[in-house]
């Protein structure tokens, strides 16, 4: 396979996507709806590049296009840049304060005031939905269709199957999903609306709230037997680490006096 990216020859394995090959070789291709850990969905289209294969040139999305033979790729052709500029202008109108979009706008000369701003507060990249499906409790979905499409929970009601993992908030490129831990509860706020509320676990040693009370069965099933860390579900990570350090220290210095007071030991 002979792959040329912007005229420079690079190596690639069959079935690798253009984005993988480009990034490995230090070529920038913008993405808004793609993270390597998730199946690509090619929704934002900002990663569109021009590819020539067997004499035929066309536009494809780099995030999910698998390379299968000789190809010549232009990541910044005039057509590509024009399209990206328009995507950024259109998406910025949906979510007018996104810093991720502002940075891209600068790069592609997008006019941020071209379209009248809306208050959708979401660029519809679908990352939260996909990460929730694969990592979390599968409570977020793309609801409705066309211009009405939006990220929501079933029937728009707060979800009772949310595990409060926070992956949605962590992955959102425009930071419109918030996790708030208040009064022993974790609230997942999607575009200002409460999507779920999950009770938090209290550390039996130090008393702080440290993570959602969840049914671990699906998580363990997804992770498989191996690779699941053996952790004490009643103790917060800080206390857990302290307790482990203490046990190690005791084993090593058995002849010495016990160390300072450790709340985790008093359970």
């Amino acid at each position, binding site marked *: 396979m002979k792959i040329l990216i912007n005229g420079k020859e690079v190596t690639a394995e069959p079935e690798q996507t253009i984005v993988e090959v480009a990034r490995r070789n230090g070529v920038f291709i913008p993405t808004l709806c793609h993270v390597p850990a998730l199946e*690509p*969905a*090619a*929704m*934002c*289209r*900002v990663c*569109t590049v021009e590819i020539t294969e067997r004499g035929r040139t066309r*536009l*494809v*999305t780099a995030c*999910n*296009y*698998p390379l299968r033979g000789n190809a010549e790729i232009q990541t910044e052709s005039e*057509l590509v840049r*024009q*399209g990206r500029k*328009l*995507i950024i202008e*259109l*998406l910025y*109108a*949906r979510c007018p304060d996104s810093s991720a979009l502002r940075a891209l706008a600068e790069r592609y000369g997008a006019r941020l005031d071209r*379209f009248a701003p809306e208050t959708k507060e979401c*660029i*519809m990249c*679908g990352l939260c939905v996909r990460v929730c499906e694969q990592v979390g409790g599968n409570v977020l979905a*793309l609801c*409705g*269709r*066309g*211009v*009405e*499409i939006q990220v929501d929970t079933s029937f728009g009601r707060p979800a009772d199957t949310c595990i409060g993992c926070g992956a949605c908030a962590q992955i959102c490129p425009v930071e419109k999903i918030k996790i708030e831990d208040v009064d022993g509860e974790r609230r997942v706020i999607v575009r200002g609306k409460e999507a779920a509320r999950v009770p938090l676990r209290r550390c039996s040693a130090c008393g702080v709230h440290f993570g959602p009370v969840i049914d671990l069965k699906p998580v363990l099933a997804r992770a498989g037997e191996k690779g699941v860390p053996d952790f004490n579900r009643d103790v917060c990570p800080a206390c857990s680490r302290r307790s482990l350090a203490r046990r190690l220290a005791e084993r090593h210095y058995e002849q010495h006096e016990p160390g300072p007071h450790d709340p985790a030991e008093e359970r």
Partner: protein
Amino acid sequence: MGSTSATIDNIPIVRLASPHDLVEYRKALVASSDPDSPRVIVCCGTGCQATGSVEVIEALRTAVAEAGWDGKVLPRIKPTGCHGFCSRGPLVIIEPQDLFYQHVTPADVPEIVTQTLLGGQPVKRLLYKSTESKGLVPHSRDIPFYSKQTRIVLKNIGRIDPFEIKDALAHGAYLGLAKALTELSPKQVIDEVTASKLRGRGGAGFPTGVKWQSCARQEGTRYVICNADEGDPGAFMDRSLLEGDPHRVLEGMALAAYAIGSQRGYIYCRAEYPLAVRTLIAAIRQAEGMGLLGDNILGTGFSFHVSISTGAGAFICGESSALMSSLEGKVGRPRAKYIRSTERGFRDSPSNLNNVETYANVPDIILHGGEWYASHGTARSAGTKVFALTGNVHNVGLVEVPMGISLREIVFGIGGGIPNKKELKAVQTGGPSGGCIPIPKKFIDIKVGFGTLAEVGSMMGSGGMIVMDEDTCMVEVARYFIHFLVEESCGQCSPCREGLIRMLEILTRITQGEGRDSDLQDLEEIGTFTNNFSLCGLGTSAANPVISTIRYFREEYEAHIRDRKCPAGICKSLFHYEIDPETCTGCGLCLKRCPAGAITGEKKMAHRIHQEACIKCMECYKSCKFKSIRIL
């Protein structure tokens, strides 16, 4: 639906144990039906049912039962699928004379029975009148709407009772399948289809033989899927096929299954087509009962099971990957995968998806050979194509024509031209994301084909053809189609979702008289971008109505934007009516028609329109016989 009396009914339905059995059974059916026996054929397609054909059938049954036949053969009353000439429905054809009656009501039935069935004379007032000579045309075979068509897939529609498999068998159903199962290997079936040069009738025009070949090469379970999610506004080709001749589609699917090595087929049909679903259910049941579908077809060991799945009203589910998603029970949204569904489609298995009309072409290709089929049409677009002819044309309905026929022949020859002495302005082909072809300028003699339509900025699509006269505003046409697509876009990918809504905003503004100088440039930029960057077929053709109308009717856009005028008199904020005092005869017709009381005037004196009261409903404009009402 059943029948009153005839010998064909006396032949029992049996399970056919071999292809030879089918041939013999068909011989018996044909021998039992006398071509000279009296028959009353009533169109019971959705169009004619809507105008009352079911009532006509009931009235016929009663009247025939009550009449004294005096030793004569009792006429057989036969409900059939759509004859195509929907604007003249309900349609009744009297055989063997081939008398064509239009707009038949139950009140006409006694006359039909006494005068025609008993007396042998036509009921003149129900006959078709020629649009040119104004003379009566008694026989359907002489009506240009029918005589200028070439019918392959529609051949049996209007002749057979779709709920009666024996009728279909007598007309040759499943003979292609029997031939393939006895004489041809799966590879030879594919070779015939390839030789026929058949291209997908759903719109994209992918060579069917190549698709089948690619699916046949794959390993594992393979599926045969029929796309019956016909959603283009005004298009009803697939519906009529399923309602009128379901066995032809089922036979085509079975042939595909045999060719690619599949045992499982699905028909994804719109839930809005209840009659089609009913005919299909009955057809599948009857075919399974006779050993023409299901396990061990015709005793050859080949098995193929078909089930129906109904959609939930989403236009996007006509897109192949969205259709397969929906069939799997998921949300019907296109999948972002650069992989053909013939490799990984439904349930991640190799799937062969074709349109209803594509499958319907296959039985005749197998029966008569690929070369025979390729001899129809043009070199690059072989065969025939069914079009749903609608809009400002005399003969609205379903027509099947050879590829390569000119638009002139379709619109004027078959369609009978434009009503009300209006000028033809444009023809829109290819459904909502097709393009508008300007007619008077240069394209009236364009030959219909996949390539030729694409060259002028439109597309073949699935076969919608909307004729537009001089009173059509092209900006409004573009706005209408973009509005349709905004509603129907799945919304996943940003160019389609955002691009369409922004184009709709601009078009709406222009039609309301608030166009800006930058609008045309913006429309062209966003339109080209949407077509280039979208994920699926809907998005990549969504801007065609805008791009093609700007390309051919730029001056109309400019009139809206710069002069704040709608030349066609459609966009209500951009025109007003005035009566020309020079030519107005004061006949008073407009005054009588005006629902808003906005017209005043003495008899035989020029009338006047009071602008503040006028609601611009067009009634006066349409009623004036002297063309005295002007659009300003």
